[in-house]
């Protein structure tokens, strides 16, 4: 369990993190989403124990991470500008990391390099950007960390590599209860791998939720009527937005699917369809419900 307790961090007169509080359960794959400059990287660095927060703290199973090498040995952080030893190849990096991480598996790093089709004897600096990302991921996984942090690491991987990386993450989570925190500015990169999502905006967590719960609680409804009902409202259902044209309406409705179906069925529509929302649509709806202009959050 990672617990982030009212963490604040200021650089000069810029408030990068403003009392961020969140809990990330063991074995979770947590997606940290936010626009550029929302504080994602700063939060990851504080979580990795690289930056000291001005106030608040980050605890791992109850132990604060700051100045605790024993905790940090169980954390692997892949920054968005990955670091490799100058002029080195994959094997040299793996050997170096194995001097820092007690569980480091150099053989595993080489196995993964072959799975990714990466030449293990070529200098990493000569790799393409995408290959360097893959290298950073495999070097991190081979450390067998309890907590793995990825800063925009998934963005820009090609579909085949994404599939391999997803399988590797799934394996580590299932076998060792690894916890992963993946920061990204793109919801689409996170939708199919994460079980929890947290949205960071202007240094604060706007909301945090289980993805399946989010998805099961919000629906798009399309319904056509012979005569439009005068009033579409129901206790227990939350109508986020209703737009209509003629006798046809489209609504975003919050509530249990069964309750939504039952309510609309009671209005005897000529046509009715319930469509699950994409994560992106859910975010836009949630943002609007919180009074934010969604346009500025998502590209």
């Amino acid at each position: 369990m990672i617990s982030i307790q009212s963490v604040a961090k200021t650089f000069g007169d810029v408030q990068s993190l403003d009392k961020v509080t969140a809990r990330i359960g063991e074995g979770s794959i947590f997606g940290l989403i936010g626009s550029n400059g929302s504080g994602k990287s700063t939060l990851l660095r504080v979580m990795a124990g690289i930056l000291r927060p001005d106030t608040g703290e980050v605890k791992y199973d109850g132990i604060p991470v700051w100045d605790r090498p024993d905790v940090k040995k169980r954390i692997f952080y892949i920054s968005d500008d990955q670091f490799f030893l100058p002029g080195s190849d994959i094997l040299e990096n793996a050997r170096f990391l194995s001097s820092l991480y007690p569980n480091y598996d150099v053989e595993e790093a080489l196995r993964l390099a072959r799975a990714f089709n990466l030449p293990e004897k070529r200098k990493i600096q000569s790799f393409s950007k995408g290959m360097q990302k893959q290298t950073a991921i495999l070097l991190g996984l081979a450390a067998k960390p309890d907590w793995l942090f990825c800063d925009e690491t998934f963005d820009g991987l090609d579909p085949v590599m994404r599939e391999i990386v997803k399988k590797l993450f799934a394996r580590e989570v299932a076998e060792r209860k690894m916890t992963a925190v993946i920061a990204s500015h793109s919801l689409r990169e996170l939708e199919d791998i994460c079980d929890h999502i947290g949205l960071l905006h202007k240094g604060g967590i706007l909301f945090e939720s289980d993805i399946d719960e989010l998805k099961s609680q919000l629906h798009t409804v399309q319904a056509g009527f012979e005569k439009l009902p005068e009033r579409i409202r129901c206790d227990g259902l939350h109508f986020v937005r209703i737009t209509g044209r003629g006798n046809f309406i489209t609504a975003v409705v919050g509530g249990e699917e069964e309750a939504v179906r039952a309510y609309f069925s009671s209005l005897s529509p000529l046509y009715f369809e319930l469509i699950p929302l994409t994560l992106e649509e859910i975010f836009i709806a949630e943002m609007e419900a919180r009074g934010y202009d969604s346009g500025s959050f998502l590209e």
Partner: protein
Amino acid sequence: MSNIRIDVKSRTPIFEQLCAGIREEILSGAMAPGEALPSVRALACELAINPNTIQKAYAELERQKLISSAPGRGSFVSDDIRPAMGAFEEKILADLRAAVHRARLCSIAKEKLTELIDKEWEGTKP
């Protein structure tokens, strides 16, 4: 279990796709009563999806009494799935009602529908 297909681009949540896929396998008899389901780990690696999602889907199927879990041994198709089947009747009939409704809006003749039902009914006899 490789018959289960997950479409990550689909709007339907992966969790629901999983439940539906496994349910289909069980109700169609492709997975026999008592048969072991793949482990969470194996299925997560095979389908490249989050193990927590699979865990949740198994819990949901267990709640529906389609499968049962023995601690340390894994999950198995329930010996008797008939009680679980009843729960789907309502849903299936609702889907059918909606389909009939739509067919009528598109002026499809009633005879055509009944003919289709008769044909499908005979065609899917075990």
